């Protein structure tokens, strides 16, 4: 694992030259090959998309305050566009690229002690593909939007009169390639650019997670690409592939779609799990518990992710035999997930926990992921899924996993690495307050909807029966609370850029390599390739008043954990 070269004190003087000031001007950003700048550009783009997707979410929630029309002018058709855009933006433009492409791009090469990713030009190309994909989505709005749901189920998607469907499909197709290239880049980077001494089992767990994610991106996304292309062909040229009136099969589309989109769920959650491993270990200042089990469970999840897509189709007319197999395999995902949760909790045991913002996000993740994971049992079980499928229960289950876990993990990671990325500290008090507000708002919004779903309220409904209204009202209030929390977060993060305290190299006491270079990192990350130790060994790290950050103190070496000493000796 990375880090802490005890013989060589940390380079703590803030070097005047960092990646932000190395060159300047618009072109120096637009054509940069620096992974850090590309990471920052991704981050800004993803956060902007998150804002837009969030506005659509609030519109959807507000519209659902009353049965029938609530917002003047929002008809059933407009509402259908709203929830489609919310889903498509959040999935394809926000969550999928958020952790790997934004945070991963910035942190991964530094964690490896490398100067950049393996293919810097390909990296920039991925970013521009993302931008083109996003532009196509915007274009589709100008052409009349799309109301297909983010799942594009046929034959509705090939017959809907909405004018922007092909543009949106093209956008997602391009975004898919952005994702494939990022994945490819990261696989090669992890394989080829690990520094001497960093064996596979010495990598920070974030890298394991990013690596497992990259494998899924490379293997699964092409299937989405070809599926969308077939859909475009069918819609544009009336060639029957999925539409039964032209001899196609709509269930085939569902198989193709979920063959990508189920693994895509793990493209979202795996890197968040990687972040949580870092957050919990660093902010509890405690060696991660059960490193190998956590690392291998990422790989196990990546493998299982390819074998469970059919659980989206238990009532679609798929054969009972397939349903049975898919149900059985789906349950197997519970095992690596349980291993991770229990190992993270054990990491807190006998730790040195600091309840700062990233740690609060990590704890929120643990609670929300537990709820999201456990409610997955209801849905993987065949007979209860018959009742719950396509109701709000499903909506809440995946919001707990995709938002409560993947996005909360991303925001936790953003806070964790914010001082490194920007060189500034944010207001810690506001950070904690905002995290608590988001946590409360999230649960008010989404836990309520479990009751809605199990009582039979189907999803994607514009109008509903009056008996469901009370839950919708509570849920909408929750979404406003959550929005408040995110606005507060946006405020103090922006404020930190202008008035925040300068960040030390190691504000949290982390052991991995990114905490060894200054904040923000210099253009070339490290003057010379750093030596690598155990990145989860915190025994020689102490707080330094003068530095206002953590430093490595060789004098502490004597008190090294006997367990660690034994481990490191072989």
């Amino acid at each position, binding site marked *: 694992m990375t880090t802490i070269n005890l013989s060589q004190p940390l380079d703590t003087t803030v070097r005047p030259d960092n990646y932000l000031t190395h060159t300047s001007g618009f072109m120096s950003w637009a054509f940069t090959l620096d992974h850090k700048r590309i990471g920052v550009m991704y981050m800004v783009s993803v956060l902007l998309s998150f804002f837009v997707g969030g506005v659509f979410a609030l519109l959807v929630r507000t519209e659902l305050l009353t049965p029938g029309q609530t917002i003047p002018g929002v008809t059933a058709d407009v509402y259908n566009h709203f929830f489609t855009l919310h889903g498509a933006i959040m999935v394809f433009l926000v969550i999928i690229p958020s952790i790997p492409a934004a945070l991963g791009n910035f942190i991964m090469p530094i964690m490896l002690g490398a100067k950049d990713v393996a293919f810097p030009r390909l990296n920039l190309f991925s970013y521009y593909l993302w931008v083109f994909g996003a532009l196509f989505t915007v274009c589709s709005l100008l052409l009349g939007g799309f109301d297909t749901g983010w799942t594009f189920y046929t034959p509705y998607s090939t017959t809907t009169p909405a004018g922007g469907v092909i543009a949106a499909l093209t956008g997602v197709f391009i975004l898919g390639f952005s994702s494939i290239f990022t994945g490819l880049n990261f696989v090669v980077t992890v394989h080829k650019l690990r520094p001497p001494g960093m064996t596979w089992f010495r990598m920070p767990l974030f890298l394991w997670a990013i690596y497992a994610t990259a494998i899924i991106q490379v293997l699964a996304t092409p299937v989405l690409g070809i599926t969308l292309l077939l859909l475009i062909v069918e819609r544009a040229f009336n060639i029957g592939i999925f539409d*039964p009136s032209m001899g196609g099969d709509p269930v085939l589309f569902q198989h193709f779609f979920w063959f990508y989109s189920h693994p895509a769920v793990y493209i979202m959650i795996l890197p968040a799990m990687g972040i949580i491993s870092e957050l919990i270990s660093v902010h509890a200042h405690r060696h991660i518990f059960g490193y190998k089990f956590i690392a291998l469970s990422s790989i196990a999840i990546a493998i299982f992710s390819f074998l469970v897509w059919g659980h989206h189709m238990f009532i679609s007319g798929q054969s009972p035999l397939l349903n049975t197999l898919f149900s059985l395999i789906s349950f197997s995902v519970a095992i690596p997930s349980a*291993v991770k949760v229990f190992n993270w*909790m054990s*990491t807190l045991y006998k730790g040195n926990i600091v309840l700062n913002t990233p740690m609060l996000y990590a704890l929120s993740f643990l609670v929300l992921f537990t709820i999201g994971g456990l409610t997955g*049992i209801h849905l993987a079980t065949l007979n209860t899924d018959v009742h719950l499928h396509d109701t709000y229960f499903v909506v809440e289950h995946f919001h707990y996993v995709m938002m409560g876990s993947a996005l909360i993990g991303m925001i936790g990671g953003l806070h964790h690495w914010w001082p490194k990325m920007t060189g500034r500290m944010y207001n810690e008090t506001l950070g904690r307050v905002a995290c608590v507000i988001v946590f409360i708002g999230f649960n008010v919004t989404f836990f309520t909807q479990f009751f809605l779903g*199990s009582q039979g309220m189907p999803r994607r409904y514009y109008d509903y029966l009056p008996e469901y209204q009370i839950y919708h009202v509570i849920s909408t209030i929750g979404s406003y609370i959550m929005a408040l929390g995110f606005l507060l977060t946006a405020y103090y993060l922006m404020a930190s850029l202008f008035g925040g305290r300068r960040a030390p190299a190691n504000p949290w006491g982390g052991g991995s390599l990114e905490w060894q270079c200054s904040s923000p990192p210099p253009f070339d990350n490290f003057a010379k390739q750093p030596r690598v130790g155990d990145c989860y060994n915190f025994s020689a790290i102490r707080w330094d008043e003068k530095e206002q950050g953590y430093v490595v103190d060789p004098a502490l070496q004597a008190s090294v954990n006997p367990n660690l000493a034994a481990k490191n000796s072989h």
Partner: protein
Amino acid sequence: MNIASTIISNLLAGDPLEGRTIWLPPPDSNLAANSDLMFWWINAVCYFFFFGILIALVWLVASYRMKKDRPFRTDGPLHHLPLETTWAVVPLFIVIFIFYFGFRDYLNFMTPPKNSYEISVTAQKWGWLFKYPNGATSDDLYVPTGRPVKLSMRSTDVLHSCFIPDFRVKKDLVPGRYSYLWFQTDKVTPEGWGHNLFCSEYCGTGHSNMNRKVYALAQPEFDDWLTAQSQWLDKIPDEELYFRAGPKLYARCQQCHSLDGTKGIGPSWKDLWPRINGGENGKFVDGTSYQSQIGAGKQYPTPEDYIRASILNPGEHVVSGYGNAMPSFKGQLNDKGIDAIIGFIKHMDEFDTKGKYLKEPAPLPKVSMK
């Protein structure tokens, strides 16, 4: 008197929401009991793990906060193979149990009994048509109690899904395929109430209004209803057709066609007759006008022919400003039904904007049990 009789009949019929909890609607089919039992067991497992994890987290955070001005404690274990294996294997056994019971009841759900009473279901944007063995049709679903009922379902356009929450059953309707759904309910639906039936697979504009009611009747009442339902149209004399059958049939059209001039998914029926009968300025999407298409020697010799064609083959001439959204009602309306609709449109001024007949207050004979 009225209130008293309502209360008494409610008492006799029982509370329709009996057995309902904050999690689940009333369990009113043979499949609901096992499904709910499974649901509660899984909930119990979830509560156990969730509260266990929550309490452990609170305890851990409370116990192991960082001590200021002291070196980090480093005495925590790095790994513990027996413990880690335990929490990998224990969940495995739990989920295998859950899988097995879910699987067992699912097989039951997937296998309709041989002696089932079969009802054919057709879904299209955005309505349901239930067709019974004697040829009767209905918009709401009527089922006999005490025997298995099998729905043989198909869709004529896009995906739909038939979902009856109180029965815990759901199945997609896939165009180009038949799918089955079965259940048995032993509880007669109380008067003035019905189980919800939802479309739960997104199908566009009218998706959320594709909900209907399910009424379970005891076999004798069901048989009476069935006979009446199959004959109600035939019993109405031709001259009374438009006001007796028209409004009832219009219920299937109202999703798209208003009577007050509001533009819906399809054109409003307000003043439709004057428009197509010698009409002014109406246009079709192909650019031709009403006048050039309707009239002696033209495609539709009479306005009646035009309406009939629009019901049976709606895509032939789509009115300008609207999409080709209407499904064909071929096989769903017989000649008498079409006559009723034509008459209804002709005499639009005799109805209010909800389709209520204004002239005679309540001349309609009782044709349905509900």
